[in-house]
């Protein structure tokens, strides 16, 4: 079909810059440290990468609407803690605990969504507030002590298990990619997502339900965050109130470096995936090179700054970096 090949070509073109960047990082790492390209390390990168990838999908959906979700990290911690409490304090079955965890993720996402889209509040501040509150809540519930889940109901399979030779996190990530791709490309919801991001006005005037689609998007992000939380807690055998404080930042950096626009409207899941792999490969490489965790923090921050610069160059051209944006100048007639 003509449509699909053309659209696919366009998506590949859009991702080409980040694909090249990923290639450069991999080649550089191989030269710097031979262990980087070993089978175990690649599997390792992909397994850890799967976690970031799932989080990035959630972030990407939100970014496509032109908003942002900074609350992911502590939302994941809270979901992790809630699942831990269900499993150990109340001895609920695994399936029930997981469902409770996922529902919590969705509800917290809904709170974000309602505040941002229904009450029309700035998402940056709202989700920043949620970041702090949810983190506090997770610590309060556990008095800041991790809940050990070693051997509880086979919980560890989500992070450490395999189906055949493939680690389960990777399978979950691939499934998430395929399902979300269908939703984004072929549903009214997905189309509206892009429309809102590009021009909320036109979307509204064309009868699109901007508010409910926006709220749904935050709920999606919450669900994906909860899935991330499950994999992460499972991997470290415990429910941790400080599970992944940087999750949102890694996700934003990954999305931006993959080419998802922070202004909304532009970006796709393939770009998000590539971006996540870039971030994970880079951090993994730094670990192999014995760079201290503090310097890794510095790198993380620099990645986000670099990614946003790259993002602006992509959308506005280099002029924007010098403070003179030609595109934004209005015609004064």
């Amino acid at each position: 079909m003509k449509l699909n090949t053309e659209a696919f070509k366009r998506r590949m073109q859009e991702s080409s810059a980040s694909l090249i960047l990923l290639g450069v990082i991999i080649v550089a790492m191989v030269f710097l440290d031979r262990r980087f390209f070993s089978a175990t390390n690649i599997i390792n990168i992909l397994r850890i990468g799967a976690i970031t990838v799932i989080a990035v999908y959630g972030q990407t959906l939100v970014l496509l609407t032109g908003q942002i979700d900074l609350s992911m990290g502590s939302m994941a911690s809270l979901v992790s803690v809630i699942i831990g409490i269900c499993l150990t304090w109340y001895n609920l079955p695994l399936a029930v605990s997981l469902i409770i965890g996922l529902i919590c993720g969705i509800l917290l996402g809904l709170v974000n969504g309602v505040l941002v889209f229904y009450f029309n509040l700035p998402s940056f501040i709202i989700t920043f507030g949620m970041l702090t509150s949810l983190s506090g809540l997770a610590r309060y519930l556990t008095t800041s002590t991790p809940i050990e889940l070693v051997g509880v109901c086979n919980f560890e399979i989500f992070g450490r298990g395999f189906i055949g030779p493939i680690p389960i996190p990777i399978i979950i990530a691939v499934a998430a990619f395929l399902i979300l791709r269908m939703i984004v490309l072929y549903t009214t919801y997905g189309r509206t997502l892009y429309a809102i991001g590009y021009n909320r006005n036109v979307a509204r005037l064309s009868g699109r339900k901007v508010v409910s689609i926006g709220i749904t998007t935050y709920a999606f992000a919450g669900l994906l965050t909860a899935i991330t939380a499950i994999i992460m807690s499972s991997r470290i055998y415990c429910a941790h109130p400080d599970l992944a404080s940087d999750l949102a930042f890694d996700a934003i950096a990954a999305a931006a470096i993959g080419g998802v626009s922070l202004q909304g409207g532009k970006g796709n899941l393939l770009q998000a995936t590539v971006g996540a792999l870039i971030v994970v490969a880079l951090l993994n490489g730094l670990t192999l090179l014995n760079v201290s965790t503090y310097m890794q923090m510095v790198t993380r921050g620099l990645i986000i700054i670099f990614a946003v610069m790259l993002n602006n160059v992509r959308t506005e051209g280099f002029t924007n970096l010098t403070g003179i944006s030609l595109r934004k100048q209005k015609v004064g007639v």
Partner: protein
Amino acid sequence: MNTEMGNESLLRVEGVSKAFPGVQALDKVDFEIKRGEVHFLIGENGAGKSTLINILSGKFPPDEGKIWLGGEQVLFARPIDAQKAGIKTIHQEFMLLPNLDVAENITIGHRPMVMVPIVNWKETYRIAEEILGKLNVKLDLKRKVSTLLASEKQIVDIARALLGEAKLLIMDEPTSALSSGEIQNLFKLVKELRRQGIAIIYISHRLEELSEIGDRVTVFRDGKKVSTHVVDKDLHTDFLVEEMVGTRIEEQYPHTPVTPKEVRLKTEGLCLPGTYNDINIEARRGEIVGITGVIGSGMEPLAHSLAGILNERSGQVFIDGNPVKLKTPIDAIANNIGLIPSDRRDMGVIVDFPVIQNISLPLLEMLGKMGWINMDSEEKVAQEYAKKLNIVTPNLYAATKNLSGGNQQKIVIAKWLAKAAEILVCIEPTRGIDVGAKTEIYALFHQMVEDGKTVLLFSTDYSEVLGMCDRIYVIRDGEIVEEFKHDNVKREQLIAAVFGEVKKSRSGARESEA
């Protein structure tokens, strides 16, 4: 009026041009203003008035041409250069700090200091008092600006502009935010400034103000200066309007009246306080109804209310005899109303979307089940309407921003036709569109009403309204003042209705002054 004072030239502009992407905003304009005269600039939107004052106030430089100020050639690179040269601009929105008091606002930028950073408050209030005294107005210097009336804020803004040296004051639609009593105060102030030898460039859409305070008037059209006239009793408003609007090349209006059928849309007492009042109009199936007026007459807000954008109005809208709620665009669309907005790029199409996705945006639900989009049906529908409306694009997947304005407008129309809208609310549908596409769009409107649809044409293009509409409502100051039938209205009648009884207020002003 124009007597002893104003014979010395203050500012002269020679052959000034300015182009923006896709439009020649000013085309070799010559212009002169004398000391102590009130010089009106008139013209339709986009005629070049704003571009000229932006150049004079240093907002951007001209592409070519020279500017002389008092015999000296000047070039303003930044607004501050123009201000230093004594050219001050009073904008429509007052540039004041609401939480500071009158004196503090007046002295901003010229605050007297004992020594940095200690403000000499005594001097501050003395200066402010002196300048207000010069203007012959009384204002409490210690009042917070946020508690002032609009006209008082304007006085503060003017006083501030006069502090330091002011030779030329540019006032951009100064009366647009004022009540009629306040307008009289402003006129008094303008006359006082003129008496003191300050030149004033005065931009207004209200021609009746011209005869009250104007000395000379310059007419702009399509980026060119048409003429400059001395204001006296021989200068007729209809003549100026004719110059503003121009006698255009006779365009093709392919509309022959269709027999209108039953009433489709009817409004009863629509009211949006401060914007429009008691609007009772109706539109039938198979009818093109024009609603026309000047900018700011309430025409566009009325159209937006019918499209569900402005929802704080009172009154009732009936469609096919049933009362309907039009609280959101979704309501309007559910009632088969489609909006063709004046701001195409911000409200009409998503410029980054491919053509096909813009056409299908309002009708996604019709293209598949359970929220899925059937790509084949989408392509079929888009193909059909792209062909029907002759949308010129390399293919359906090209980005909309690469298409011409006319083709983008056809996309807006296409999406509502594809959505099977029955009532089209069009605001300035042919603005900024080339003649060929214009004719095509007119032909589409004709086709639509022949198919039994209803077109509401909100437009300030009077030739278009005269040529295309079966019936015309004229809206002035938020009220419907006149209704014309297509076959018994002359252009002069329509224009007189749009601009109001100008001649009357003109002679009135003269008498009171004599």
